[in-house]
């Protein structure tokens, strides 16, 4: 298990390096002079050269990459070219908002999606199963920014129940929670459908296995068979799906944060890209990749924890 974890973490670090190399390559290959785009056509050559130097773009690409990682190891992710604030500070300020948004959305999606999937299986072939099926496909088909805009119109503009923008007053839990409802719901909605479908599909497969018949032959109640004997196996593909899907949850946070003008990583990165603020872009991408890689590793370790057969494969 330990060897497995070490191997996965090593692989994760390699992915981090590869992503950053790809990012630098992209900056290098993008046509046009970033300084001209950022400063506008009427900037003086001195100003442009200054900006290029500040972003380190006058150095060879490989040197830029080495410098980036050398600094990153000491916790220095570079400086915002416009405000001169450390990128690490900017990211750390924006990160909690995004993480709370993403994790709330994920938790809501799991808490509603998994029981719906189970209910579908227990009532298979009935009207309840059909309704859950149609609703799931329905919510999967609606993009989160559409949900965001319509819920804004309904709950913030017409009904005035929830705040339209921002992340709530600092330190005021109720106001922060209220500001979280719509963005989280906008992201979670489609995932509820995904998770319910996924749980139903893998659960149906597991329910046909002989060991379920054994549990039935001992007269175990159906809810116990579903929640203990079937779900522990059926949840495994869902965990993989959710771990991979977290990337898309974080990227839908970019749209949702834009719609609700909510401070967060999504907003930070869109602003940085628009102003060609490369150090901020690089720093944010590094942190997001690191989070994504960690979650994938955590999910794999969780699966190994849940399935003793997987555990044994990696023990040997």
């Amino acid at each position, binding site marked *: 298990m330990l060897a497995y974890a070490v191997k996965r973490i090593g692989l994760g670090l390699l992915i981090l390096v590869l992503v950053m190399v790809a990012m630098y390559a992209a900056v290098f290959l993008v046509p046009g002079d970033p300084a001209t785009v950022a400063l506008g056509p009427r900037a003086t050559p001195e100003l442009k050269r200054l900006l290029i130097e500040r972003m380190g773009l006058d150095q060879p690409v490989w040197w830029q990459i080495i410098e980036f990682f050398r600094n990153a190891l000491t916790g220095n992710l570079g400086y915002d070219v416009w405000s001169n604030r450390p990128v690490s500070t900017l990211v750390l300020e924006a990160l909690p908002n995004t993480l709370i948004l993403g994790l709330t959305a994920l938790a809501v999606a799991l808490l509603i999606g998994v029981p719906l999937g189970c209910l579908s299986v227990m009532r298979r072939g009935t009207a309840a199963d059909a309704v859950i099926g149609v609703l799931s496909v329905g919510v999967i088909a609606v993009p989160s920014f559409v949900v965001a805009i319509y819920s804004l119109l309904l709950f913030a503009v017409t009904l005035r129940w929830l705040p339209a923008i921002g992340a709530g007053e600092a330190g005021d839990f109720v106001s922060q929670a209220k500001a979280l409802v719509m963005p989280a719901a906008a992201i979670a909605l489609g995932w509820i459908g995904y998770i319910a479908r996924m749980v139903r599909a893998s659960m149906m497969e597991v329910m046909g296995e*002989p060991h379920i018949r054994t549990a039935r032959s*001992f*007269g175990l109640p159906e809810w116990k068979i579903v929640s203990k004997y079937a779900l522990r196996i059926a949840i495994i593909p869902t965990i993989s799906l959710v771990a991979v899907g977290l990337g898309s949850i974080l990227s839908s946070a970019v749209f949702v944060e834009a719609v609700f003008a909510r401070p967060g990583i999504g907003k930070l990165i869109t602003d940085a890209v628009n102003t060609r603020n490369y150090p901020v872009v690089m720093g944010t991408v590094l942190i997001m990749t690191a989070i994504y890689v960690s979650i994938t590793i955590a999910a794999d370790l969780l699966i190994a924890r849940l399935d003793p057969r997987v555990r044994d494969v990696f023990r040997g």
Partner: protein
Amino acid sequence: MTGSLAASDLSVRYETPHGSVHALRHVDIEAHPGEVIGIVGESGCGKSTLVTALANLLPANAHVDGSIHYNGVDLAKLDAHHQRLLRGDEIALVSQDPMTAFNPVLTIGDQLVDFQHHRKDLGRAQKRARIAAMLGRVGIADAERRMRSFPHELSGGMRQRVAIAAALLTDPGLLIADEPTTALDVTMEAQIIHLLRELRREYNGIIIVVSHHLGVIAELCDRVYVMYAGEVVEGGEVDAIFHDARHPYTQALLACDPARFHERLDRLPTIPGSLPNLTQPPSGCVYAPRCDRAFAPCGSIAPPLVKLAASHVARCHAVTP
């Protein structure tokens, strides 16, 4: 609690998109406490459907006619809830394939504790103590450690022992072993038969053993029912069936058992022909198309159950008491 079991005129049909499959037709069997009953027949003869019906585990598309009286209660008329209360309490099933019979992500101990859920009077520690004792009784050394094992960490023979232990833990009045040795190799098969023989000495309920293996039936059972194409064609004491078989199918089946050959043969004997299509069972005798003794009435009139001796019956036009 122990009581007698009697299925009478029991029929089961499966409704499928291709029509109804009459998997079991007008079956009469009975069993009394302390008896070991064998059910034998080739694949597709309905033996699994019969025991599945006895254990109330038929799928939703199955339709049951007739009655299954156990202990004075008609199991076929019970609602799903009361059927479930009997399973794992009065009726226990040792399923066919020990390799897939247990949940792969839960420990043996965890599952065996759950399987005793009808015993509300016992605490978890007491249940675990009963498991350890029962595992020892079925010949598993180091029971405490095995309870912490996952199913895939045990060999096939050991898993079948655990499956038998699980069934015995519930103190059933009716223990059904569906092909208990089919998935095992010959050495393991001999060990499991030995174990079942030992257990029957201490057990006073009914044991039903299903097998297509004549040797297994001969070694374990008191009485045996021979099934063909969803019907019981002959039934009686093991001795009577093995030494004085009267139904042509039973005779042909015995003639095909390699264990009964005295000299080496170039070709193994077989019964020519194949099973009838059970979506449209024949109106006469089910075995008539393959029977070498078939005569005029066999093709059109279903043969009656002829009583040959106290417990020896055969469903054939050609036999006479």
